[in-house]
């Protein structure tokens, strides 16, 4: 067991970027304000000085243009990390991601690889109102050809990018801006992580809490509190939203016989919709009760703190829901 170190989510991401930049000359970071400004969220602060402007490239506000250029550079043998400042602006790059990155391998009959990694901040929690608080993981997870990762823990913040850089196919990485300042302990030698599987973060026998992204620490906190009350919850971080690893959560549900899905994205046509469908298809007869879910309320995210908080599941909502499910 290696030593543990305290690290913020921001610093963990930054170290992962440094690692891949140092390891491979083909890697470069391009995005709005990644260089001179130090990153909109200070993730890449200092990297311009360390690696120079050739490898830490500030780009104009042309999401489609620079994302497409990243895809093109990947086609031509480079390994770009494209930072789309936040998912909120990613719709402007959606054509490039969906129509080019996700299709070129297929359209070319397997001739062209697109080893681009596209990172974007996302989520709610900073009172940024309707246009800057989106949880659009489901949009991206809908598209065959993309690998979609959700960074729900500090270990994944430290390691997911490193693993994603090895992928021959386009990877979208969702980072949660709300978590940037959050400090946690991770093993000092943390590095590359597996990026094909979901992960059981806490074992339990009474109910499976299946979640991703900003829901992960909330579910872990809820599970600890439930433990005090004699409810043993298992917590699963989906991590890979596409291609989805169903084996991990199906095995869990087969063991606990109950499942609650927790996500911040809007309820309809969401990740939870997909998870629940697969449980119905493949673990229905293992269930002791209906699968339930806590999702984002279907409203453009409002500005006031109390309304923003009410828009997504909180730890207290998870506690209430689990207790209702187990002790009706």
């Amino acid at each position, binding site marked *: 067991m290696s030593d543990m170190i305290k690290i913020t989510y921001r610093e963990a991401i930054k170290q992962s970027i440094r690692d891949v930049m140092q390891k491979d000359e083909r890697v470069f970071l391009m995005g709005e304000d990644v260089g001179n400004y130090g990153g909109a969220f200070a993730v890449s602060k200092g990297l311009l000085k360390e690696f120079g402007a050739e490898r830490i490239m500030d780009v104009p506000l042309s999401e*489609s243009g620079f*994302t*497409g250029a990243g*895809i093109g550079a990947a086609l*031509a043998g480079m390994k770009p990390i494209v930072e789309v400042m936040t998912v909120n602006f990613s719709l402007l790059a959606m054509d490039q991601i969906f129509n*080019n990155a996700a299709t070129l*391998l297929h*359209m070319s009959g397997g*001739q062209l690889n697109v080893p681009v990694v596209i990172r974007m901040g996302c989520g709610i929690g900073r009172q940024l109102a309707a246009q800057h608080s989106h949880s659009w993981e489901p949009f991206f997870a809908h598209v065959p*050809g993309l690998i979609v990762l959700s960074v729900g823990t500090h270990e994944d913040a430290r390691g997911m990018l490193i693993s994603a850089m090895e992928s021959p196919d386009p990877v979208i990485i969702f980072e949660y801006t709300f978590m940037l300042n959050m400090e946690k302990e991770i093993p000092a030698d943390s590095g590359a992580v597996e990026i094909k599987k979901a992960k059981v973060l806490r074992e339990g026998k009474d109910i499976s809490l299946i979640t991703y992204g900003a829901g992960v620490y909330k579910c872990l906190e809820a599970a600890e509190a439930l433990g005090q009350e004699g409810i043993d919850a298992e917590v699963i971080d989906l991590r890979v939203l596409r291609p989805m690893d169903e084996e991990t959560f199906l095995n869990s549900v087969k063991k606990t016989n109950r499942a609650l899905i927790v996500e911040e994205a809007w309820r309809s046509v969401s990740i939870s919709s997909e998870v629940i469908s697969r449980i119905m298809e493949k673990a229905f007869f293992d269930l002791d009760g209906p699968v339930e879910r806590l999702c984002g309320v279907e409203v453009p995210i409002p500005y006031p703190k109390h309304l923003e908080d009410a828009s997504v599941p909180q730890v207290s909502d998870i506690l209430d829901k689990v207790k209702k499910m187990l002790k009706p």
Partner: protein
Amino acid sequence: MEKKKKLDSKEGQRLLQQMILIRRFEEKSAEEYTKSKIRGFLHLYTGEEAVAVGVIQALTEEDNILCTYREHGHALARGVDPNAIMAEMYGKQEGCSKGRGGSMHLFDASKNFFGGNAIVSGHLPLSVGMALAAKKQKKNNVTCCFFGEGAAAEGEFHESMNLAALWQVPVLFVCENNLYAMGTAIKLTHSMQQLEKKGAAYGIEAAAVDGMDLLEVMEAVEKALKTIKEKGQPYFLVCNTYRFRAHSMFDAELYREKSEVEEWKKKDPIPKFQEFLLKEKLITAKKITEIEKAVDAQIQESIEFAENGTWEDAENLTRFVYSETESI
């Protein structure tokens, strides 16, 4: 004209052969479409041959080429196997994209031929990225990106021009202005119809040329490539041309007068170049007949190749969504 002096008999005949091949290949494609051998969208290049042939003859094998969905001519001019192109349009797995792409998505990585891109202007950012990669890799190649005047109204055109100039990357933007974005005339789509003037806004050197005249195109592209190589800057070449046939096989051509088409047919680039070769004694009438016969035989062979091609087993349906290699 400098180019006229330089053109020898062998090269002149090769270029004429290419234009005739494109013309007859397209005619045959239309015929196969009416027989339902080719399906989907089929966009024919008839009338615009001098542009692809004139530009591509000046490129080296290392140069990258990206095209639109009206790209059969470019693929042929690039030397992509006509058999593989026809098989692709038939949807056979012997096609240049293993049948997955069809008419709009011809790819041949071995020829640095990158499609066949069917979202108008979506490939412009890719071309900038490929050129950026070349610059980073200190390669000496140029990326040549063909698009129509319709694409020049898209945001991605402007983003790409800006990025290419900002980054000083070796891209040759070739606008094939055929006066209609599908069925909408340029006067209804561009406030500034002298498209070459748009280069100045980005500090990009630009020129317009008669795209119905092979020799004019050749001379213009020579100058463009010289500028790109000497200055390490992008170049914007507008080739004013005209498509003799409909936009696609579904198009009833309600938006233009037959007389207009007839007027443009008088500028047909093939007879024009043929007359030049005859006048300069670079070819004989007998040789032209031989070329035509050889082209017909080649096209017949491509039809037979496509007919004899095989359908991919539906069990393979989900191939090429993700790479079959683990890492890159």
